[in-house]
Structure formats: structure tokens, C-alpha cells
């Protein structure tokens, strides 16, 4: 399968350009759409999900064009928006059933089966008869994923699905997503990286409506190779470091802080060069120049 996006443009109110001539293509697996907030990620995903019309450009799946085949696309896409609302008094099961009806699954038995399947995938079977008002934040997020998963869509579009989840929930959800990506195209947008990462088939970087990068995880990571240093410091040294260099991550260890710093040359005496991570390659791309 191949999703082809050509010269996508979106202009709001005649003057605000959310997307500038974005083009890319993707197949099965996990595609990461990264970028700072207001980069146009949500706009891009909404267009792919058929919820917004582009101002120009087109989207096609295995040769079929989105705008002319809306119903077909609706049937093969599962979409989870950034903010998903539920009726508090509905049970999880009832909510999914309702959405299944909206998706055009009219056969009651088939619906029941698909709803049970989806809830099982996200581990909500035990609470399917509980009112959503009593669900925790993480559970609501999983319910949102479940509705997107109904009927095993060929294209799964998730807008910041891990945002707000704690590390345990993130890991569990990450596992579910990785499984689905075996047979579908999963597009996930995010603005930051966690330590337990997906094996992205492809990465797309958006900023202010422009696609800055599309390519492999390895190539993006490589942008930071030779530029990442590990420094052990106390609080005061940290403040100094933060003023002169880009500090990428910091961890408390044994009474001091271990920080990762982006710099062209050794930032200070005690710094040790370390292998670059994806997050750092992304930062190098965003910050055109790295501080000396």
C-alpha cells in the first residue's frame, strides 16, 4: 500500500498558511510526524483523515484520490484527534458502539464483535460497562485509540496519542501501536520523544507549515553525530551550561546532574562525547546553528 501526498496547501481565512506545498509518500509501518506546536501537524492529519479540505494539492492511496473517494477513505481510516470528547454518562462500550454505527457498521452482531475486540486490544474490557465519567485520563485516551481501531483500519492516524500518559501507560500503548503497524500504516504526530521509542519507518518534520525533512530515523539521528556531549555537573554549573549551550536532557544521579549537551566542540573540560539520539538529530535540524 502507498499513501501519496502531493503539494498539499492549506490557507485559512485567506491569509494564514498552515501548510506550504507539503509532499511525501508512505507505506506500511509507523510514520512519525514531528514538529513544534503550531507547525501544522494537526492540520495535515485532519486533511489526511478527510476532515478538512486542502486549499490545493492532493492525497491518494494506491492510486485512489481522497477528494473523489471520500466514503472509501472513511472506511479505511481510523483517526484519533488531539482532544476527544465523550459523553460522561455513556459507558465505554456504548460509546464505541455509537461510533461503530457512525462508521457505517450496521450489523449489530458484527458491531458487538468489533467493539469487544477493540476494547480488548486496549485493555478496557473490564471497565466496558463503567460510565466514561469515571474513567481516568489514561483510560479515556485508550478508549480514543479503541474507537480509532474499530474494524482494523488500514490507515491509523493518531494526533499526539501519548501526550499526558504516564510512562507505564505510554509503554503499554506503544506496544499496541507497534503491533498494529505490522499490517497498517500508522501515522503518529508528536512534538517530543520519550525514552521508549518506536521503530519509525519514516520521519516527517514540520515547522511553520514547511516540511523540513522526510527520511529515515537513522539519517535524522546522524545530523547530530559528533555534536552530543555528556556532562556531569552541579546546579550552578548547569545554569552556566544552559546559558551557553543547548542542554537536551538532564538526569539526577547520585547528588549531581548528568546532562546531554549539543555543541560543536567540547563544551567544558569534563565533557565526554556520546552517541547521538533521534531527539538530538531533530533538534539540530530545528536549530540551524549549534552554539559554540
Amino acid at each position, binding site marked *: 500500500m502507498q499513501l501519496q501526498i502531493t503539494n498539499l496547501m492549506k490557507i485559512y481565512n485567506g491569509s494564514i498558511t498552515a501548510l506550504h506545498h507539503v509532499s511525501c509518500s508512505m507505506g506500511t509501518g509507523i510514520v512519525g510526524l514531528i514538529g513544534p506546536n503550531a507547525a501544522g501537524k*494537526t492540520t495535515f492529519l485532519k486533511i489526511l483523515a478527510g476532515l478538512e479540505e486542502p486549499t490545493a494539492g492532493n492525497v491518494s492511496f494506491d492510486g485512489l484520490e481522497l477528494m473523489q473517494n471520500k466514503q472509501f477513505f472513511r472506511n479505511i481510516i481510523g483517526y484519533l484527534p488531539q482532544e476527544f470528547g465523550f459523553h460522561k454518562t455513556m459507558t465505554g462500550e456504548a460509546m464505541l458502539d455509537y461510533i461503530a454505527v457512525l462508521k457505517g457498521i450496521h450489523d449489530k452482531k458484527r458491531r458487538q464483535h468489533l467493539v469487544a475486540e477493540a476494547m480488548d486490544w486496549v485493555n478496557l474490557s473490564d471497565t466496558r460497562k463503567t460510565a466514561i465519567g469515571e474513567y481516568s485520563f*489514561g483510560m479515556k485516551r485508550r478508549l480514543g485509540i479503541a474507537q480509532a481501531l474499530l474494524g482494523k483500519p488500514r490507515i491509523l492516524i493518531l494526533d499526539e496519542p501519548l501526550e499526558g*500518559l504516564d510512562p*507505564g*501507560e505510554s509503554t503499554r500503548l506503544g506496544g499496541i501501536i507497534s503491533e498494529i503497524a505490522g499490517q497498517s500504516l500508522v501515522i503518529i504526530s508528536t512534538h517530543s520523544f520519550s525514552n521508549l521509542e518506536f521503530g519509525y519507518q519514516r520521519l516527517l518534520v514540520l515547522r511553520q507549515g514547511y516540511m523540513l525533512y522526510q527520511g529515515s530515523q537513522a539519517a535524522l*539521528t546522524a545530523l547530530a553525530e559528533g555534536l552530543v556531549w555528556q556532562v556531569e555537573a552541579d546546579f550552578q554549573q548547569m545554569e552556566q551550561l544552559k546559558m551557553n549551550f543547548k542542554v537536551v*536532557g*538532564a538526569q539526577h544521579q547520585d547528588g549531581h546532574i548528568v546532562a546531554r549537551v549539543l555543541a560543536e566542540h567540547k563544551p567544558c573540560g569534563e565533557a565526554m562525547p556520546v552517541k547521538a539520539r533521534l531527539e538530538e538529530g531533530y533538534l539540530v535540524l530545528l536549530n540551524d546553528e549549534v552554539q559554540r
Partner: protein
Amino acid sequence: MLTLEMENIVKKYKADSSVLSHVSATMRPGFFVLLGPNGAGKTTLLRIMAGILRPSSGTILFNGQEISQNYKQYKQNIGYLPQEFGFYPDMTGRNFLHYIARLKGIPASLYPARVEEIAQCIGVSTFLDRKIGGWSVGLRRRLGIVQALLADPDVLLLDEPLIGLDPEEKLLLENYFSQLATERIIICSSNILADFITFTDGVLLLVNGKLCFNGRIEELTDVMDGKVWLAEVPAKLGQVIASKWLVSEMYTVENISQIRIVSDSMPDIAGVRPTQPGVKDAYTYIVRRNDSP
């Protein structure tokens, strides 16, 4: 002296389970993180501290006085930002903030300038005259933070303020909170350890309604000696290990996974060796230990 005390706070919705069990702590000026997994009771505790939810038992004291004696007066001294905050999409940011300012009783001669000032610090002033419906999620969250700051409160209670913010936005806010905290009590909840880590004055770790730790972040590792292990294995084996053992961090690059395992005894994995415990290891360990009711 500015103090906010929680004395034996208990909250139950059903007779047999507690959302909060005997939470006690005394807060003084500074920046504190209320840390814990989702469902630990962080939002419930913040709402009780904000005076909008009554505890089943226990008291909250502000500067030595029970807030239950005069909630209205207490609330004038605090700023609160809930996790899910609603806006009227057709209002502009400015109109919304002016509205909130009036609700908070800020005089009309003062609030326009105040709104502009805080909006500038938080980086949303260029958007103020656009309808909120068109703002991105990250910007809306920042708008929520502005409203909490309007009345210049002594106490700021922010429920997961960083959710949805990208790294640049987080940094901007963290720097701003750092400045504010010198004269105020600021408590931000989070489920991510990395948030606020470099400047927090203290961490309150809530797991399953119990306050498992209250102190400086470096002290978290005090009990962890001999409980943290490092292994470097092929990625596929890494997945297996992550499902069998308690892993505080796993980093995979080019099919090799570096894994930090937290365990009372040495795991039977080839090549595993003991390592210095870090805060994240301690956090992972304490959360798992208190996870079941």
C-alpha cells in the same frame, strides 16, 4: 511566613476504597512537583488544596488558618489551573482574560495592563486578539496558565500544565515558574519525571493515594543502593526483558538496547552488572512497590 499545610487528608468516594489516604505535608515558598502515575490522586489532591473539593477528613491550613473557615477569602489568594480547561471558542484571548480578571475581582483600571504583562511573559500576547477556537492546543494551555496568574496569587496550583507543550514551550514556562517561585508556593503536578527536574525545590510522590515521598529530588535515591542493574542486549531480547522485569529506562539504537533494570536481587541476564541508582530508577521502583491497593 507563607505556608500551606495538608493535615491527614483522606478522600473516599466509596466506602471501601480511598482516593487519598492520610496525606500530610507542609509547603513553604518554592517550586514543588506533585509527581505520580495517572490515577494516583494528584488531581483530587490539587482540587482539595484549591478549596473546590472537600476532603472526607483532614484539613488544609493556609498561613495557619483552616481554609474551611473562609473558602472565599482563601480562594482570592490562589491561582488554579485544572487539567482540562474549557474556553468559549468565539471569544478572543484578550476578552477571555478580561472576563476572568473581572471574575477574580481585579479592578478595571488594573487588569488590561496586567493581562498584557502576563501574556507577554508566557509568550501569547501576539495571539490575544484572535478567537481562541483558532488557537493551537499548546497555546490554549498557555492561556490557561495566564489566567491562573492574573491575580498575582501567593499559591499557584497547576494540574499537569506541561501536557501538550513542545520542548521550547516547556522551557519557557519552566524558566518563568523558576522566577515566580522565590516568593510563592507553586505546586505543579506531572506524571513525567523529566518535567521540572533541574530546578524543583522538592518532590511529593503520590502513588495510589499515598504520599510515598516528600523531599528533595536527590534524596529519592537514598534507598536504592544495590537495586539497579545495567544490561546491553539485542533489541528483540530487550523487549522480552522489558516485559519480564521492571525497567526504568530502555534505549534502543541500531538494534542494541541499553536497559536499566530495577530489582531487589540481581536479574539472571547474561552480562548484567550493578550500577549507580538514578532518580528515575527510584521513581520507577517506588511506584511499582505501591501500585496495588
